[in-house]
């Protein structure tokens, strides 16, 4: 069955224009893009020229352009980026046209990519760090932010070094620090605008990927998410207005500023639901698991999961000719797409159309027919039990119990009533708004619940009737 063309509205890659990716080029040719290489002219403008164009515009005009493009956050929640920026406190302009001093505001870049199955931001940080740095500079100018912190996870040792080097290059070439952006160039806002950017390394905690957990870690505290409101745009890092954006979101900014919002809106697709923001632009989709050619691909939103897996230019089919059994929609907290949902379109409507939590990071993990789905559920439950920060009781206790139940079922010592108990936990834990601070428990729920519902027979085969006495393998009564 022939597939429609890949990226029909584009002549080539955008985010990965300097990083070889299938189907455009062999990933073997990848190398770290230096400042000098980044500033060479390309199909989406020369590097840092978009920043020059941006500072020639009023900050609010930049925000307006991003808002118009409906660039949605690439970190998982899909919140419109331009809209998020407008939540910052408004600034008064004097009669002479001079804007009030915005005071201290912060940008926190979320590079804490710890969701299992997700490895897309890493590609950008590994090979083309300046793309993100240019996005940071544009965002800082549009939001009048003077200090940006790149919060990168502790496990990314190599990427942190690449970023540090790239920052050194950017500082040496007058992008950051010194007299102001682009060697103190005059901005449309009036005068130069100085931005500082630093790398801040995390230390191995998934919860720091939650935006307020990340802020706590930046303040040197435990990564415990905060209760909202106040929202970070009003009161964030050190109590100051703060914007938190994902690496990939920021990497989209240079091309949007260069080509304009209309160009961006030609890609992807609009929502079929009324009053729902569209899914424009390309997305880095990282496929892992049992496919012939796993890796990161840059694709327009709306491509089907089937094409992503079977297209010879992309994943080139299932490994060893096996049958498709299921795929995690995009990072494990999003839930699973079953064998009958292979035609799901990878866009921000995927959750409503296919009964999963959402698109997440658009990085599916694919399973073949030989995969034990009970083990998949147990692996996911173990992850959430391990990463629950322990602040809210439903999540701290529920994730532990869920893991124990699933371990018992996997070991063959589960009882029929354990299935109902596990499902009950996976339906109620933190589901009611306000019972947990962040969405970690909800991610755990969606993952376990969708697996248990879609592969119920596999679970039933493993359990014994409730009337049979079973060995306790976990919990207080364990051997």
């Amino acid at each position, binding site marked *: 069955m022939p597939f429609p063309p890949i990226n029909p509205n584009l002549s080539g890659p955008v985010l990965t224009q300097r990083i070889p990716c299938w189907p455009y080029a062999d990933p073997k040719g990848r190398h770290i893009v230096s400042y000098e290489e980044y500033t060479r002219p390309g199909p989406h403008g020369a590097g840092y020229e978009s920043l020059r164009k941006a500072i020639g515009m009023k900050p609010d005009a930049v925000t307006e352009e991003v808002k118009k493009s409906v660039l949605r956050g690439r970190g998982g929640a899909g919140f419109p980026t331009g809209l998020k920026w407008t939540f910052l406190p408004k600034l008064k302009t004097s009669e002479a046209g001079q804007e009030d001093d915005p005071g*201290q505001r912060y940008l926190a870049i979320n590079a804490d*990519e*710890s*969701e*299992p*199955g*997700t*490895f897309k931001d*890493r590609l950008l940080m590994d090979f083309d760090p300046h793309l993100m740095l240019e996005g940071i500079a544009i965002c800082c100018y549009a939001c009048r932010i003077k*200090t940006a912190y790149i919060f990168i*996870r*502790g*496990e*990314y*040792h*190599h990427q942190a070094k690449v970023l540090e080097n790239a920052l050194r290059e950017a500082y040496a070439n007058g992008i950051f620090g010194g007299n102001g952006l682009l060697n103190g160039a005059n901005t449309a806002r009036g005068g130069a605008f100085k931005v*500082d950017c*630093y790398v*801040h*390394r*995390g*230390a*191995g*905690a*998934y919860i720091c990927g939650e935006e307020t957990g990340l802020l706590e*870690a*930046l*303040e*040197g*505290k*435990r*990564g415990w998410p905060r209760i909202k409101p106040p929202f970070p745009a009003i009161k964030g890092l*050190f109590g*100051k207005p703060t914007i938190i954006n994902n690496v990939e979101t920021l990497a989209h900014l240079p091309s949007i500023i260069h080509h304009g919002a209309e160009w961006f809106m030609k890609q992807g697709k609009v929502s079929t639901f009324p009053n729902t923001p569209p899914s424009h632009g390309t997305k880095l989709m*990282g*496929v*892992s*698991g*049992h496919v012939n050619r*796993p*890796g*990161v691909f840059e694709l327009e939103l709306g491509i089907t999961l089937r094409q992503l897996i079977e297209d010879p230019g992309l994943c080139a089919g299932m490994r060893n000719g096996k049958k498709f059994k299921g795929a*995690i929609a995009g990072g*494990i907290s999003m839930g699973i797409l079953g064998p009958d949902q292979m035609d799901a379109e990878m866009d921000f409507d995927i959750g409503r159309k296919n009964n999963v939590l959402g698109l997440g990071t658009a*990085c599916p*993990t694919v*399973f073949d027919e030989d*995969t034990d789905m009970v*083990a*998949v559920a147990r*692996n*996911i439950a*173990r*992850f959430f039990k*391990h*990463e629950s*920060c322990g602040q809210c009781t439903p999540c701290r206790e529920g994730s532990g119990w869920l893991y124990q139940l699933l371990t018992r079922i996997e070991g063959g010592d589960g009882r029929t009533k354990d299935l109902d108990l596990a499902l009950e936990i996976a339906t109620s834990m933190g589901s009611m708004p306000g019972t947990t601070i962040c969405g970690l428990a909800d991610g755990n729920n969606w993952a376990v619940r969708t697996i248990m519902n879609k592969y119920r027979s596999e679970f039933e085969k493993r359990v014994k009737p409730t009337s049979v006495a079973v060995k306790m393998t976990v919990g207080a009564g364990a051997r």
Partner: protein
Amino acid sequence: MPWISKNSAGNAVEKRAEPYLTPQMRSHLSQHIVPRYEQKMGALLPCLHEIQHAYGWIPGQAMLEIAEFLAIKPAEVIDTASFYEEYWLKRKGKHLVSVCRSIACEFCGQPGITQAVKDALGIDVGETTDDNEFTLIELECLGSCGSAPAILIDETLHENVKPEQIAGLLDAARKAGAHH
């Protein structure tokens, strides 16, 4: 039974005359790192990283020194340090072998990798070899799901690892000398 309180290790801190936070570290941190943050405590994670990198773990005395250096309370330092997995508050081996056990790795051959490391070193997950060379742990997602299974030895990531490569990788780490 949680209500029977156990006599814990107490709060005595093992001390040595020589400081862990050396004058060089102090001047580097106070010149380049601390000014980045509006509040001094923001520099706590970088300070802990510095100690962890230099010694392979974070001794109690070092936490006291950091508290004094950042003008915060020792309790605040241990509160943060005990939350993050990457900080070792107990001694570990010279080299840390971390096997990724998350979803893509587990279903693409991670159990065989863990077994190969266990066999090569003669230890279980969470243990340290008798010669204090290697500590083996399993951790969650290393971010190389597309090239699973992955293993992190010290600060070097190895992807698409096969069990038969493990002995060679461990030997290379041993030869590379202490690196935290």
